[in-house]
């Protein structure tokens, strides 16, 4: 209240100095031509996701009886280390990539929805990078593999339960033509 009065009286004083009995008629008349920033955007930019490239995959990658059809690795909360149980899976994919030097893989790291979206991009990246590093240590050429993060943006499961969160803390391995 005191602050208001102080400000108000100061402003009133200043206004008093400048004002004349016809102050209102001398009040600034502004042409309201809105600046570019207040105009609506000129149109909607619509983007369509890239279409998958033609499927060049060997059927071994899709055969449910082949370990290569398994593509996901799951993590504990806030963790990015690959658990031992997934090492045979990575070895199988490393072998496939080493034997098929033209094959390309995209590794997508994912997180559950808790926490900062951007921090989760970095956490998902750490997960994807960990898989990539392990594959290259197993003999895969680095150029065959790209590791990226989807953070918490593409959840497989959308309920706020631990069962759901554990499905979303995941690294996915996709071959060319699958993304």
């Amino acid at each position, binding site marked *: *209240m005191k*602050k*208001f*009065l102080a*400000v*108000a009286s100061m*402003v*009133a004083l200043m*206004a*008093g100095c400048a*004002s004349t009995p016809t*102050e*209102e008629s001398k*009040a*600034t*008349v*502004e*042409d*309201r*031509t*809105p*600046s*570019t*920033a*207040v105009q*609506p*955007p*000129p*149109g*909607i*930019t*619509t*983007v*369509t*996701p*890239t279409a998958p490239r033609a499927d060049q995959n060997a059927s071994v990658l899709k055969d449910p009886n082949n370990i290569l059809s398994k593509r996901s690795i799951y993590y504990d909360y806030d963790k990015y280390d690959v658990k031992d149980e997934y090492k045979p899976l990575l070895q199988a994919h490393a072998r496939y990539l080493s034997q098929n030097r033209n094959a390309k893989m*995209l590794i*997508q790291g994912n997180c559950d*929805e*808790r*926490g*900062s*979206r*951007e*921090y989760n*991009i*970095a956490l*998902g*990246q*750490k997960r994807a*990078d960990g898989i990539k590093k392990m594959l290259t240590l197993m003999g895969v050429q680095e150029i065959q593999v*790209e*590791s*990226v*993060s*989807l*953070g918490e*943006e593409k959840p497989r499961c959308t309920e*706020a339960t631990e069962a759901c969160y554990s499905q979303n803390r995941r690294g996915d391995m996709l071959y060319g033509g699958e*993304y």
Partner: protein
Amino acid sequence: MRYFLAAIGLLLALACGSAQAQLSIEITGGGANQIPIGVLRFVGEEVLGQRISDIVEADLQRSGRFRMLFSGNVDPLPSEVAQVNFGDWKNRNADALVIGSVVRLADGRYEARFRLLDVPKQNQIGGVAFTLTAQQVRATAHRIADFIYEKLTGDRGVFSTRIAYVVKQGPRYELQIADADGVGAQTALASREPIMSPAWSPDGTRLAYVSFENKKPVVYAHSLVSGQRQVVANFKGSNSAPAWSADGRQLAVVLSKDGGSQIYLIGADGSNPRRLTNSSSIDTEPYFAPDGQSIYFTSDRGGSPQIYRMNVGGGEVARISFDGSYNVSPRVSHDGKTLIYIARDGGRFQLKALDLASKQTQVLTDGQHDESPSFAPNGKMILYATQAGGRGSLAAVSSDGRVKQRLSVQAADVREPAWGPFINN
């Protein structure tokens, strides 16, 4: 170009914009020392189709810094100082009164005049006359509210500013821009893949953001003037977390091209990426201090995600947050005095403010999943994302934690708010 770009005409954009349910705002709590003010209907304002005085009143009320006095029973309405019954308003403990008038001009436009009056002193604090078209009623009302707010509080008003946010409806993501009161939403970008981290350029003409339309995070800069956009960073790996430098020429971004998530400085046109951090840890969420010389960021170099500060020119890195095991998403107020961030406490994620001089912290929100805070350009309000009824929604809180607002859109998930800068015109 691997993505398909389509600019649809303005008419369609407007049609789409008006078809969407707008943000509705609900206010809870009240500020301390609210200024009692009466906003009278403007004489003749009916010709505009909507009342300027209603919009001004709603703006002032939403700020939490005014106590609105009932003003619907004044007859006849004054438009001149001499016509005001000051004694009556003094009896109602009014500190300030707003009167005004609207007339139609010969060229079809309108003139709206208002006066802000000091009731105890029975004189005029200020007044402005605007020439406007019927489409500029809201913009004019926001300008009037800005004038009143600044004269009475000493702080610049933000009613004429805009906000950006992401709406997810089914499989569709839209980057939308609306007035600060949530009205007039327009879609700048529509995609079937996620959009996140919108950031306003300092002049308010561009938005940088992260889009997943290429199945991975890529940073774009989108002109709101032309609708054209440009790739800022599309390197191997992930590209994210754009933050503008004060001059609008560069962005701090997070790239994983050299291994790990590290902070780089890059031209707004994608030129000259220069690495700023060099760690084997996660370094992300850069945010420029207002002086442009230092950058606040999130890093897990100490074993848990915490907030740090580094100089743009290099040199030592200082840890800023200490309490708790998860402190992320730093943003600095425009005066450089207050740092806000998201802190995990137990299983809850809440907005905290840190006074950088005294090191005092204050929890500002009480949600479970509060995230993505954004200061209003006057530093008095903070917009953030929260969850309500299983859906994402936006909320705002005053920087002292006293005034709270909830902004919601029917049947849609709203997230990733960013409050735009002051508009100079």
